[in-house]
C-alpha cells in the first residue's frame, strides 16, 4: 500500500498520471512533462515534494553534531536564516544521502532528505546522536511545495498574507530561509531557477496548492522535476551517486569543507586517502549534437577504449538536444563515444550546469 501526500486528491483532480516512487504514489506529469518543464523555465511551476523527509535537530550541541555528520560545514552559516547543500558520508567516504540543511534558529536546524533514503538517514542520525545533547525529530505531518521559475517571487507575493510578505523580504539571496507562523520558507530549489521551497503543516497544503493553481501556476510532476535538475547539472541520488561512491567522484567536491582541518566529519579520512592515492573517475556532463537520447546505464567509450557509464540522461527541452551526466575514468578527451541501441554516437564532454536561469551555459555544437 503506497503512501499519499496531503495533495494526492489534488493531483487526481488535475488528471495527473500517478506513478510509484519508492514508498509513495506521486504525479509523474499532468498531461505533458515538456509543457511543465517549459512553464518553470519561462514563468513559474509548482511541485508537491512532500515525500521528502524533514528532520529537525535541536539542542545545545546541534552545531557540533552536524559538523560531525555532514561533509559540508554548518558553521559557515554563521547566523540563522541560511541554508547549505551537503553530502552525509559513511566512514568509507561513500554518500549516504545528499541533503539541504536549514539553520532556523540558535541550536535549531532542519534537514530535508531524499524520500528514498529517509529511513536510512534517520537511523544513521539516531545511531550517531547518543554522544550529543540534541533531539532528533522526524516531522510527520509536513507538506512541502516547491514554487520555481523566474516569476516565483512575484507569484508568491501575489498570494501571500501580510506576515508572509514581510518574512519573504528577508529572503534576499538564494539559500536564505525564514519562518512565518508555522511555515518555513526557503529560497532553494532543484531546478536552476529562482524559487522557493515552502514547508507547511499538511492541513494547509491543499489551500496553498489551490490558491497557487487559481493564480495560474502550472502543476509539475516528477518527470519535469528530473529534466529540470538535469539541465541544472544537479545530481540525483541513486543515479549519479550512492553509498559506494565519494563526493570527489560525483562532481560534489565543492560541497566538502576541508577547513577547519580539525573538523573530523565522518568520512574525512577516507576522502583524504582517496585524494592522496589520486582520483580514478569523475562525473562529467555530456551533450549529443545529433538526433538520439542519452540514457542512464548506456556505455561510454573513451579514446583509449576505457569504459565509463551514463548515470543520468535525457532530452533537454531548453537546448532541444540530449544531455547527460556520466562517470568516466579521468582523461583529457573532449569527445567520447556512447553506445545507444547498438549504434555508436559521438558526444561532447562539457562542464555542467547546462542551463542556469533559463540560459544555455555550454556549447552543444548543434548541427
Amino acid at each position, binding site marked *: 500500500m503506497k503512501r499519499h501526500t496531503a495533495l494526492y486528491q489534488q493531483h487526481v483532480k488535475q488528471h495527473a*498520471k500517478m506513478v510509484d516512487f519508492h514508498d509513495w504514489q506521486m504525479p509523474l506529469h499532468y498531461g*505533458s512533462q*515538456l509543457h511543465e518543464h517549459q512553464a518553470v523555465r519561462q514563468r513559474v511551476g509548482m511541485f508537491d515534494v512532500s515525500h521528502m523527509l524533514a528532520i529537525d535537530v535541536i539542542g545545545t550541541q546541534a552545531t557540533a553534531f552536524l559538523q560531525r555528520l555532514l561533509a559540508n560545514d554548518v558553521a559557515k552559516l554563521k547566523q540563522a536564516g541560511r541554508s547549505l547543500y551537503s553530502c552525509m558520508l559513511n566512514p568509507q567516504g561513500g554518500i549516504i544521502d545528499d541533503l539541504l540543511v536549514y539553520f532556523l534558529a540558535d541550536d535549531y536546524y532542519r534537514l530535508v532528505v531524499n524520500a528514498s533514503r529517509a529511513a536510512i538517514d534517520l537511523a544513521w542520525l539516531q545511531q550517531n546522536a547518543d554522544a550529543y545533547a540534541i533531539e532528533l525529530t522526524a516531522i510527520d505531518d509536513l507538506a512541502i511545495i516547491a514554487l520555481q521559475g523566474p516569476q516565483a517571487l512575484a507569484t508568491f507575493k501575489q498570494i501571500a498574507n501580510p506576515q508572509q510578505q514581510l518574512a519573504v523580504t528577508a529572503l534576499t539571496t538564494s539559500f536564505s530561509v525564514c519562518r512565518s507562523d508555522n511555515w518555513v520558507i526557503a529560497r532553494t530549489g532543484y531546478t536552476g531557477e529562482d524559487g522557493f521551497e515552502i514547508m507547511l503543516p499538511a492541513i494547509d497544503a491543499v489551500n496553498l496548492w489551490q490558491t497557487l493553481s487559481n493564480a495560474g501556476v502550472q502543476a509539475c510532476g516528477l*518527470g519535469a522535476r528530473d*529534466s529540470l535538475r538535469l539541465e541544472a547539472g544537479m545530481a540525483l541520488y541513486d543515479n549519479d551517486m550512492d553509498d559506494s561512491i565519494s563526493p570527489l567522484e560525483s562532481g560534489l567536491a565543492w560541497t566538502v569543507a576541508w577547513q577547519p582541518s580539525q573538523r573530523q566529519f565522518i568520512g574525512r579520512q577516507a576522502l583524504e586517502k582517496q585524494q592522496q592515492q589520486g582520483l580514478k573517475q569523475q562525473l562529467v556532463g555530456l551533450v549529443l549534437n545529433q*538526433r538520439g537520447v542519452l*540514457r542512464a546505464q548506456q556505455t561510454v567509450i573513451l579514446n583509449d577504449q576505457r569504459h565509463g557509464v551514463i548515470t543520468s540522461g*535525457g*532530452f533537454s527541452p531548453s537546448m532541444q538536444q540530449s544531455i547527460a551526466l556520466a562517470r568516466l575514468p579521468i582523461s583529457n578527451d573532449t569527445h567520447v563515444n556512447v553506445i545507444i*541501441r547498438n549504434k555508436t554516437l559521438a558526444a561532447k564532454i562539457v562542464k555542467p550546469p547546462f542551463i542556469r536561469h533559463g540560459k544555455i551555459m555550454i556549447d552543444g555544437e548543434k548541427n
Partner: protein
Amino acid sequence: MNNIPTDLRYTASHEWARREGDELIIGITDHAQSLLGDLVFVELPEIDGQLNRNDDAVVVESVKAASDVYAPVAGTVIEVNHALTDSPQLVNQDCYGSGWLFKLRPDDIAEWDQLLDDDSYRQQIETDA
C-alpha cells in the same frame, strides 16, 4: 479512457492502420502514446523501403524510453510524415490524425482485414493491464 476509433484496425503492439483505397496509413494508438509520454524524436523509414510484417519501421524516442514501431502488414513505404521531424509532439496530441507516421502500399490488402478490430484491441489492452 482510451480513444479507439472504430474504423481502424490494430495490432497487439499498439499500431493502428487506416485503409484508404489500396494504401494504408499507419500510426501508434492513444494507449501507446500515453504509455510513452512526450515524444522527442521520431525516426521515419526510407521511402520505397520494403517491409515485412513485424519489421521495425519507425523508432520513437520519448522522454522515458525508445520504442520500436512495427509494420502491421508487409508492403512498400510510399510516404512518411515529415512534420514529425520538427514536431514529434503531434503524435501525442493527435495520434490518429496529424500524428500519423507513414503510408504503406501493402503486398496484400486483405491482410488489413485480419488485423484486430476496435473491440479486440480494447480487450487486448484491458488484458495487458
